[in-house]
């Protein structure tokens, strides 16, 4: 591509398609850029390669049938999506789930946040050529997946919550397993920090690369770790606490410059904060019911279904028709691993959702990616794409 610069010189730019089938773009993102040597002079991004119609599909079924679809939004931390959606529907019913369910959900949310950060960090480091970290983090992640399998039988896409509670209570020995895995997570984070924190190659490749100022980040609507990396200390768990997060002792981790280094390191430190929250939550875990005692939401006990006519009808209605939230429009958000995950649910009082709009945190981050990497080296763009953690399932829905 031949261009005339503002100074009147003629330059030859090379145009390059990066993706959609490129390892750093995870198969679904496309960056079309004009290169001057190795510098990206202009970049435009395209998404939608994994647009699989979430928002149309969920209108076809009942509210309970939405849950498996939410798993596949951010498949690195499926449980947070489950819980976020259930929380939104529970808000529409004005129902509070029992204490044990809340505490279990906090444990699951934070463990999911940890595995999301594990996957994000290690693949990002692989993009930078640091392959060893991948083994450290993936082994730890497999340990968490063993707990998931014991809990609900699935590894990645769990569908572990139900509207009004959980699929089932935790298995005996759950707490011990989690405590053991927490130690391994801390060890893995320490090992990876030891490998990269003072590594000159890593620092040179990431420090002051693709800097996003706080003003830009806010204007792009960034939330979560990426916003905090730019120095804005905002976290839904602190600002608008839910599930008793205000009673847990933890810190938000905040960056200074908003460069790739900050975005990677914030995830490493946030894992340690999440470990601390999980420990506190496990200490509070008391026996009790996990489903809200509300006939509109929760299935009755199996025993009662066989012996009680009302319970039988209730069970039948819930399974064949599902829940019926009151008509209206509700927005509810949760601090997911990537930022604010919101569900804007429109109900017409029927059994199927009339319209569900997801507010995916990735969308805002990817919107900024093109302008972010203009003027940077193309190799750094790959590293930066990893650091903003784009999960295509959530981005494209």
């Amino acid at each position: 591509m031949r261009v005339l610069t503002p100074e009147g010189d003629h330059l030859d730019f090379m145009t390059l398609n990066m993706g959609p089938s490129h390892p750093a773009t995870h198969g679904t993102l496309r960056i079309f850029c004009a290169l001057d040597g190795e510098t990206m002079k202009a970049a435009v991004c395209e998404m939608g390669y994994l647009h699989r119609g979430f928002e149309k599909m969920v209108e076809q079924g009942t509210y309970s049938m939405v849950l498996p679809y939410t798993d596949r939004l951010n498949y690195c931390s499926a449980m947070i999506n489950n819980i976020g959606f259930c929380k939104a529907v529970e808000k529409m019913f004005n129902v509070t789930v029992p204490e044990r369910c809340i505490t279990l959900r906090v444990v699951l949310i934070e463990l999911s946040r940890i595995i999301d950060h594990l996957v994000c960090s290690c693949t990002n480091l692989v993009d930078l050529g640091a392959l060893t970290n991948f083994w450290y983090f993936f082994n730890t992640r497999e340990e968490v997946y063993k707990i998931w399998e014991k809990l609900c039988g699935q590894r990645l896409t769990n569908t572990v919550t139900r509207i009004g509670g959980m699929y089932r209570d935790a298995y005996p020995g759950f707490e011990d397993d989690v405590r053991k895995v927490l130690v391994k997570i801390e060890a893995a984070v320490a090992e990876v920090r030891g490998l990269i924190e003072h590594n000159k190659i890593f620092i040179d490749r990431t420090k002051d690369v693709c800097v996003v100022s706080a003003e830009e980040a806010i204007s792009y609507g960034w939330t979560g770790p990426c916003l905090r990396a730019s120095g804005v200390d905002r976290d839904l768990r602190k600002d608008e606490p839910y599930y008793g997060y205000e009673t847990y002792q933890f810190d938000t981790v905040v960056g200074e410059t908003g460069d790739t280094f900050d975005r990677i390191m914030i995830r490493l430190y946030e894992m340690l904060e999440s470990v601390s929250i999980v420990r506190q939550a496990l200490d509070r875990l008391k026996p009790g019911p996990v489903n809200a005692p509300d006939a509109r939401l929760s299935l009755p006990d199996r025993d009662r279904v066989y012996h009680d006519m009302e319970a039988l009808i209730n069970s039948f209605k819930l399974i064949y028709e599902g829940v019926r939230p009151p008509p209206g429009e509700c927005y509810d958000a949760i601090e997911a691993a990537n930022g604010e995950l919101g569900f804007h649910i429109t109900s017409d009082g029927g059994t199927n959702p009339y319209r569900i709009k997801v507010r995916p945190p990735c969308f805002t981050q990817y919107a900024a990616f093109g302008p972010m990497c203009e003027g940077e080296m193309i190799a750094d763009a790959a590293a930066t794409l990893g650091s903003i953690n784009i999960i295509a399932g959530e981005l494209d829905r």
Partner: protein
Amino acid sequence: MTFKPVPATVAAVSDSFVPDGVIATSVEAVVNWGRRNSLWPFPFGTACCGIEFMGVVSSVFDISRFGAELVRFSPRQADLLIIAGTITYKQAPVLRRIYDQMCEPKWVISAGACATSGGFYDCYCTVPGIDEIIPVDIYIAGCPPRPEAFLEGLVQLQNKIAREHLKEQKAVGA
């Protein structure tokens, strides 16, 4: 004359083994033996299944036990295309092009419900199974498939390659 026991590497291609390292076998058996034990996969991972494929490559499940750990991101260097994830109509021309860029011989594994049939995304933008676009050798069930299922699919493909005949040309896209 004393016969040595047949080494395992030789047993894979021939059962007749003469001392002094002479074996009698067909070219086909040797070629297939080489091909099936050194598959170089191109992971076309788009969605959840791609994350599970990363688990397959990692040290817990370790795909290198089956000789297929050399993951290549250039279709020119790969002979096994693993489609792990939903393929949309926007993605379909890309997938077709990647497949065409691969050199013969090449094989395709369709991993997971979405790649195989569209899964539970039966809507305006998803391709109902990648076999509408490219030929597929092995389908793996699951949403997403467990890593063990990935490995089982790979072993099935190896068995299939062992039965191939050199004379037969691959049908489509050759």
